[in-house]
């Protein structure tokens, strides 16, 4: 059985040509997604998680940015080869986007009902009266009370959480098959974040759309994602289903990140384990593996050759020369617990 994946990213490379030098933002990443998948894309600031996703929609400014190579097949069609005038066909219609800061991504001088309706008028050719009714329906669905009155309000009249709901209403208005959510809850409080995650999960089931959820928050990933891609230094260092990623991370970076988080049973007399050093300078990336300067597993080989993603278990890949040593660590730890 062979099904065309919904999304197939291959060898995507994005650079930014700045006055300080060439920023190697995304360095040849490849992954696929199926219809209805919920994928968490994790990484620290500057790891390339947002840039790689925005590049798929050709939303990075060129110049200074440049998509150097690669392909992004959405339902079989390479988005990087479509004429710029045609990308609108996909953007906002087949693929919806939610940005981190709803205040800067909404038009401050247009009532929100009109903003949502506009997307449907342009993308679906809907008549304006019908689009307005549809907007009310969408706002109700994302949990905005008295939507029929609030469509006349402007973005500043909404709270942060409500604005993010408006963004979600807009993103799903054309029934996208893929929703890209770029840190949609980072600017929100935890109780509001919980509401938004709940809402997106329900909408995902209802509309059976696929989701790429970009975040640096591993807790949010644990709550939401079915699969996780971990990015570091512009490369994908580990890809796995959510549970094995958290229980048996195979890349030293993922392992380091997870063990630096205090868990419910972390003894507060003990220091937290941590990753040495700082995230890499994307202009002067180290040769070999991008993580080696901070890695406790490193050997000479890591400083010279860049490791490729290798399968360590079914559907679980890691880009590290020493994956076996990381996994051995898990085995000896669980043996210790068993004793």
């Amino acid at each position, binding site marked *: 059985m062979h099904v065309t994946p919904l999304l197939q990213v291959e060898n995507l490379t994005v650079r930014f040509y700045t006055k300080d030098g060439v920023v190697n933002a995304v360095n040849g990443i490849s992954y696929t997604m199926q219809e209805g998948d919920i994928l968490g894309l994790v990484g620290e600031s500057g790891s390339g998680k947002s840039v790689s996703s925005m590049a798929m929609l050709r939303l990075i400014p060129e110049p200074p940015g440049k998509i150097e190579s690669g392909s992004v097949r959405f339902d079989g069609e390479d988005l990087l080869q479509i004429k710029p005038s045609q990308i609108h066909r996909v953007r906002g219609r087949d693929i919806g986007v939610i940005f981190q800061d709803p205040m800067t991504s909404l038009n401050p001088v247009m009532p929100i009902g009109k903003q949502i309706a506009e997307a449907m008028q342009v993308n679906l050719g809907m008549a304006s009266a019908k689009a307005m009714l549809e907007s009310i329906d969408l706002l109700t669905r994302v949990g905005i009370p008295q939507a029929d009155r609030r469509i006349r309000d402007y973005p500043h009249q909404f709270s942060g959480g409500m604005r993010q709901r408006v963004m979600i209403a807009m993103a799903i208005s054309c029934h996208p098959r893929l929703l890209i959510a770029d840190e949609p809850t980072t600017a929100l*409080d935890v109780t509001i974040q919980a509401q938004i995650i709940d809402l997106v999960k329900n909408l995902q089931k209802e509309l059976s759309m696929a989701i790429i959820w970009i975040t640096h928050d*591993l807790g949010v990933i644990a709550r939401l994602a079915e699969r996780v891609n971990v990015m570091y230094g512009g490369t994908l260092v580990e890809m796995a289903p959510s549970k094995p990623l958290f*229980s048996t991370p195979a890349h030293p970076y993922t392992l380091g990140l997870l063990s630096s988080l205090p868990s419910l049973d*972390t003894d507060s007399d003990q220091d937290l384990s941590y990753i040495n050093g*700082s995230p890499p300078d994307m202009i002067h990336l180290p040769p070999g593996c991008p993580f080696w300067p901070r890695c406790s597993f490193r050997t000479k080989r890591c400083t010279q050759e860049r490791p490729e993603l290798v399968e360590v278990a079914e559907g679980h890949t890691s880009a590290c020369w020493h994956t076996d040593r990381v996994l051995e660590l898990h085995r000896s730890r669980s043996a210790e617990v068993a004793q």
Partner: protein
Amino acid sequence: MNTANDVILNVNNLKKYYPVKHGLLQRQTMHVKAVDDISLQICQGETLGLVGESGCGKTTAARAILQLTPPTAGSVKLKGRELVGLNAKTLRDMRTEMQIIFQNPYSSLNPRMTIGQILTEPIRVHGIATNRKEAEGIALELLQRVGLSPYFVNRFPVEFSGGQRQRVGIARALSLNPYFVICDEPISSLDVSIQAQIVNLLRKLQRELDLTYLFISHDLSMVRYISDRIAVMYLGKIVEHGATKTVLHRPLHPYTQALWSAAPIADPAIEETRERIILTGDVPSPIDPPEGCNFCTRCPQVMAICRKEEPPLRELAPGHWVACHLY
């Protein structure tokens, strides 16, 4: 254990209201009750975690405690000395005893000063070192203490990463040798892989220098790791406080329960089975808080009395205080 002598900081009925002016005549019509009658005590060597969502008054409380903004009412005693109403000179002398580490290490360091200048300025202002050489010696010692190389002393903040800058911010706060330090969201603007480094550093310094911390954060997993006691704020008021273990494992206030359940845990196996309380609605405006209990508009267990009477903070178990009509 906590005898009266141990208490370093004693805050009583602290209030900070900001006037809201309206109309042509700028008539003062309403108040933003940013901090509305809070009381707390912190003992020697202890860490009190102050948690709550944005806008609940955590930072305003910190600023009012340090007299960085004059409180509207209430009393703040540091080792028994009243801080409210002190004149500027006396207050400045008191700054050697209490300091603050700010949230954003990008905006809290002057970009035109070298790290050395940033660290020696407080020493110079307070006349702690007699000459430049001695001040520089102190700066080098501070750098070493926070894990930075002495070569950094002549460099500018722009040359450093966020984690390194926060180390500088910590070194500056320690330059006057305070015993009480407020950490105002010290890790929330840092990368995840850097946060543990900074938390470890703060704990190491606490052990070495016998510091007392007020640790403000919205990151519950860090707060519960670092704090001996936790106070939960909602809309300008403390709704629950007590020993970390108690508040964590037996939260009594419905808001604390909702906050705990909303905070995601980085373990899908736990997340899958966790019971979740999803609050509806937003935090009301502090200009116009609801009548009765501040939380009554969102509380899943709201009763008739909650909309009429404000619940007082009561000690329900030794050291565990809750402001709720349910108990």
